[in-house]
């Protein structure tokens, strides 16, 4: 009787799956090691599956994308504009007028999660904010020769091992890199390296490459956390037409 009692005590302390692995050691599920139940899922074509609802683990990057990064060296005009925006407490930023924050700022709002839907030829990011979406083309296409700048740009993705590398150009210079006012020019190229390290976290290294605004590219590691068992709602910034109230 005593032995059984000891065994049941142990059972309470060990996760059920580990016990199952111990008993049924030959099952494929258990073979590579005990942590497989928490492994990052993969798509049928063998890629890590980045699909899910994610939000920034910290609010700091939306406030200040550089987050104290000493490698951020402004071109003079960009420094002046940044200082002006700081002095004005960020007044005039596009999101004040319900306009998109652009890439990468749109990804960074902690209270505005986004959903990533991954297919072999396209990755779509659905935003809670304003019901917008981004397309990242993974079908091998190249950038179009000439497009007018847009709020979210044109994004092409490729896989580098288990990392999705998305490159975005064609961004309008009307957006700010963050709510604090880091400016950019129409030469901006954003590279995002998406790596889902665990089921619950995705690290995205965001590189800002804009020689007109910064003397050299700079990279910020942004962590996103997964939100499970919910779905995106619909929150749209309602605009009051300017001619109302006349």
């Amino acid at each position: 009787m005593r032995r059984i009692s000891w065994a049941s005590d142990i059972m309470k302390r060990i996760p059920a799956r580990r016990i199952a692995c111990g008993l049924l050691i030959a099952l494929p599920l258990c073979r590579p090691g005990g942590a497989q139940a928490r492994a990052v899922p993969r798509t049928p074509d063998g890629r890590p599956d980045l699909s899910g609802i994610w939000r920034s683990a910290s609010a700091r990057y939306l406030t200040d994308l550089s987050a104290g990064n000493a490698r951020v060296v402004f071109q003079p005009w960009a420094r002046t504009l940044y200082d002006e925006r700081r002095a004005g407490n960020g007044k005039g930023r596009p999101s004040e007028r319900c306009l998109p924050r652009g890439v990468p700022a749109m990804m960074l709002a902690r209270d505005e999660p986004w959903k990533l839907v991954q297919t072999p030829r396209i990755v779509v990011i659905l935003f809670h904010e304003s019901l917008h979406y981004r397309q990242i083309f993974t079908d091998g296409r190249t950038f179009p020769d000439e497009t007018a700048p847009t709020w979210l740009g044109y994004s092409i993705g490729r896989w580098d091992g288990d990392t999705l590398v998305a490159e975005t150009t064609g961004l309008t210079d009307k957006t700010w890199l963050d709510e604090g006012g880091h400016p950019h020019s129409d030469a901006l190229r954003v590279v995002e390296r998406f790596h889902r390290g665990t089921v619950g976290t995705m690290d995205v290294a965001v590189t800002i490459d804009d020689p007109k605004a910064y003397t050299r590219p700079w990279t910020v590691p942004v962590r996103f956390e997964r939100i499970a068992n919910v779905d995106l709602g619909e929150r749209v910034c309602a605009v009051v037409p300017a001619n109302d109230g006349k």
Partner: protein
Amino acid sequence: MSSKESPNRRYLDGILDILMTGAHHCRLLDHRATGGSRSPGPRCQKSSPPVSSSDGVGPILRLMKAKALGLPAMVWVLASPAMVQWLHVEQADIPRTLDGRPDLTAPAPRTSDGRPDLSGIWQRQRGMPPSSAGRDGIGAGADVRFQPWAEAVYKARGENNGKGTPSERCLPHGITKAFSVPEPFKIVQTPSLILILHEEFNHHRQIFMDGRGMPEHRAATSFGYSRGTWDGDTLVVNTTGFVDDTWLDFRGHPATGSLHIVERYRRRDVGHLDIQFTIDDPKAYERPWNVTMGFDFLQDTELIEHVCENERDAAHLVGK
């Protein structure tokens, strides 16, 4: 649409059609011509009578009419088709005829799980009424029996040129209104989720295919909550959970939070998609009514982002 037409030409023709029937979408020109954004409002010019014309000379005649209407910006665009944006993106997965053109009458492709694959970029079929702002909106030809209050609202909106439509404030169109515009949309199909990416306003919609039910606690939204199932080769989508002030079209067919829309998607062949909508809202209509819209496949191209830019466009809004 014949397989020999270029999408660019087709798009220009579509623009001309829309312009010359005085619809709300002259803002479309802003977007495709200068990129990035257009206005949210229902229209930016008063209606002008349709111009009948035969193919070939039609666009030129219509262009001349446009000049006569004094729309210099539009004429500039129309006279410079090269300035209209059209992204060319070669697609490897479209069946093609011997001369390399997409074979739009080939059987609809299928996904690996054997379902019809609805994926692709679609645009409202040519020859359909150019705008749902027209006399009967999407209700043209349908047996629409209003409840008395709804009929009064509908009549008042007609007299006000549709002023007050939610998109004036950059709010989403909702299902049928979003499909009634000339801008294309893209379907991305996976076994458990189907996405509809509307070029207009850069808004998305999700159709859940994983057998889930309607969530118990969920705020009402403009696009509602959509769950799909397959009925043979037809995708059937049930949507409820709408906000209380839906406009089903630019003309102003009202709907309430009781609205239930059933959509039946059928891809006839590579080039053609039909969607039948059943509008069931007992608070606004005495009985359900049906509308079918046809869509043409747009090959070798890509959506162009459009974002509702209110302050720039508010000046274009008309209506009393």
